[in-house]
């Protein structure tokens, strides 16, 4: 009994000293790696090429390049270099016969679990070009060609074919839909205006959605991916919350209460829209019941409350409040009950987003005067800084698989969009055009 007391006193002392000495970060880093390790080992996968099935030489190479990057970004697979292992991939042929059998055997011996190959061609039919792609999968565990896919479409969807096939691979080995077909909405400076854009998750195929010549800010997806909600300054004296339907471009105002109406966020079931509004004085949080149109005020406080983000089960919200001076993260029930402060470290923590798996909340933390990405567990026990160095990092948004974040940063000068793994590794820049790209929001998986 006394021993237990002694140990707990000793532990308490150690924790206290650790906190005071400010070494919590390095301690949290160790815990973090353990907590986010995937429940499976990465599956080693080799892409044995997309052969030319008639058509231009670049076609197969383009598909192979996109596919390999998707496979790598999935974090489900470990992309192996087949020629580097001495495997002659061209022998794979059409996947039947002695040549391919030899390649399968070689791959299995070298520890490659999955082999992928395919064929792509382009032909003119009825005056329209048509791309055909086939992809096949060999699994060394069962020692058989487990199946494949055949796609057809216009040359403009070549990248989408590769993305689709990559997602099928993820689906096959995890049961999850993959993220290769997801999109990222963001804000891009166009002259003196800021307009909404949507691009593929890898930064390709950016398209402009709004063109009203002024400010359109902080887009967020609807759970069904069909709409974006965002703050619009169409009338410069009020900032409303608008909605746009992606398939039609149709746009209308959903919240127009007067004052500043910002940071809209739809609940995971689409039944509520949480947002901040200053129409009753200072910025407070509200939620709109999207079916009854009833608006419920969630916070009552003389300081600023904003940036709500839903827990994946829709029961709680994390948000920002400067009720203690600087902005800090708080949690509450989605009806405004049970408010408690989540962050205590640092004097500036903002822009929280709850991970789709529920186990982390990403946010912007001010560390030594720099604005960086941090993550914290909803119980406040684990915390880690993900980015370092100069530049203002802002607006983190989770990938639907919870393995990545997208964010904006001025690390390279102008504000651009970047992707990073949830463990802080593999930063990848996604935008290169334009003068200012910001406020990225990652779509749900389809």
């Amino acid at each position, binding site marked *: 009994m006394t021993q237990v007391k002694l140990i707990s006193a000793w532990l308490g002392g150690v924790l206290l000293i650790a906190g005071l000495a400010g070494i919590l970060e390095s301690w949290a880093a160790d815990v973090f790696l353990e907590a986010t390790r995937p429940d499976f080992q990465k599956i080693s996968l080799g892409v044995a090429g997309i052969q030319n099935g008639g058509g231009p030489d670049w076609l197969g190479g383009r598909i192979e390049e996109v596919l390999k990057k998707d496979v790598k970004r999935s974090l489900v697979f470990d992309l192996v270099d087949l020629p580097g292992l001495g495997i002659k991939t061209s022998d794979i042929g059409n996947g039947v016969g002695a040549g391919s059998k030899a390649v399968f055997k070689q791959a299995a011996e070298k520890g490659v679990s999955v082999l992928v190959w395919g064929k792509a061609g382009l032909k003119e039919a009825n005056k329209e070009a048509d791309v055909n792609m086939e992809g096949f999968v060999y699994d060394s565990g069962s020692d058989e060609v487990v199946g494949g896919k055949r796609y057809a479409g216009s040359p403009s969807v070549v990248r989408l074919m590769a993305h689709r096939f990559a997602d099928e691979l993820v689906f096959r080995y995890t049961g999850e*839909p993959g993220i290769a077909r997801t999109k990222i909405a963001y804000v891009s400076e166009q002259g003196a205006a800021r307009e909404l854009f949507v691009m593929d998750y890898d930064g390709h195929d950016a398209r402009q959605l709004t063109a009203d010549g002024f400010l359109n800010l902080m887009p967020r997806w609807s759970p069904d991916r069909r709409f974006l909600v965002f703050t619009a300054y169409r009338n410069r004296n009020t900032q409303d919350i608008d909605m746009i339907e992606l398939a039609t471009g149709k746009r209308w105002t959903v919240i127009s209460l007067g004052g500043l109406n910002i940071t809209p966020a739809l609940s995971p079931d689409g039944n509520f829209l949480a947002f901040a509004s200053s129409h009753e004085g200072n910025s407070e949080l509200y939620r709109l019941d999207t079916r009854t149109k009833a608006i419920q005020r969630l916070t009552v406080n003389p300081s600023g409350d904003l940036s709500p983000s839903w827990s994946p089960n829709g029961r709680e919200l994390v948000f920002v409040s400067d009720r203690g001076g600087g902005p800090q993260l708080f949690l509450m029930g989605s009806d405004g009950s049970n408010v408690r402060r989540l962050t205590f470290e640092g004097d500036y923590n903002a822009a929280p987003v709850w991970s789709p798996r529920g186990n982390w909340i990403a946010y912007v933390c001010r560390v030594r005067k720099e604005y960086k990405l941090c993550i914290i567990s909803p119980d406040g026990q684990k915390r880690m800084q993900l980015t370092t160095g100069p530049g203002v990092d802002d607006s983190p948004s989770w990938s639907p698989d919870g393995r990545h974040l997208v964010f904006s940063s001025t690390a390279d000068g102008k504000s651009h969009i970047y992707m990073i793994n949830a463990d802080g590794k593999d930063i990848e820049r996604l935008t290169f055009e334009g003068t200012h790209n910001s406020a990225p929001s990652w779509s749900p998986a389809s």
Partner: protein
Amino acid sequence: MTKTLGIYSVMLVASMALIGMPGCSKKSVQSGGDSQSTQGMAKKGSSGNGGGSGSSGTTDSSRSGVGSFPDTGVQSAGGGLRGLDKNPSEERVGNGTMLAKMDPSGSDGRQLDEIRAEQAASSAAGLRDVLFGYDSWTISEEGRQALTRDAEWMKSNPGAQVKVEGHCDERGTADYNLVLGEKRAKAVRNYLVELGIGANRLSVVSYGKERPFCQEHAESCYQQNRRGHLALKTGK
């Protein structure tokens, strides 16, 4: 001994709760989708109306500032993936499933023309701006002096309407800077009201860090961007 066991069991329960979360969320999303699919048809009609009224540029204020709302819950899971097949049949991959061609007709530069006109009018009137400290919305002595002169001008031009714009430097989040910008704009407005200017002649707007005066990543520039800008309203 019992104490340690207690601690362990608390940790176990906590970690189980965390592990359980994704499962819970999936269920709630699916059940939401199921319950909505029955009323989906009726809702879609109303969403069309909302879009129609919205695209004409007016605000639907019939229900205290709330516009129409479509169903946005997930209707079906699965993501359109059909799985690998030993004899795969052809799947047509389309492009235009989710993104409409943008209608640029709304972009007529009207807003920017208005801003240019306001800027010209403001500088002709000699209105002065207020600069703020880092993280701060407190008006400095220098700021008070500027506002005192602005108030004098407004008193001798009783018909003038002024819009106070709150601006922030690029440090900090876009979201919080909108709230900070509003605090700055309101601090300026409140001080002008203290100086005897009617509140009905003053409006506030926050631009956060979205419309900086200066684009460099340097304190000299940041200083210029932490601002309460007085814009003289032109037109109505």
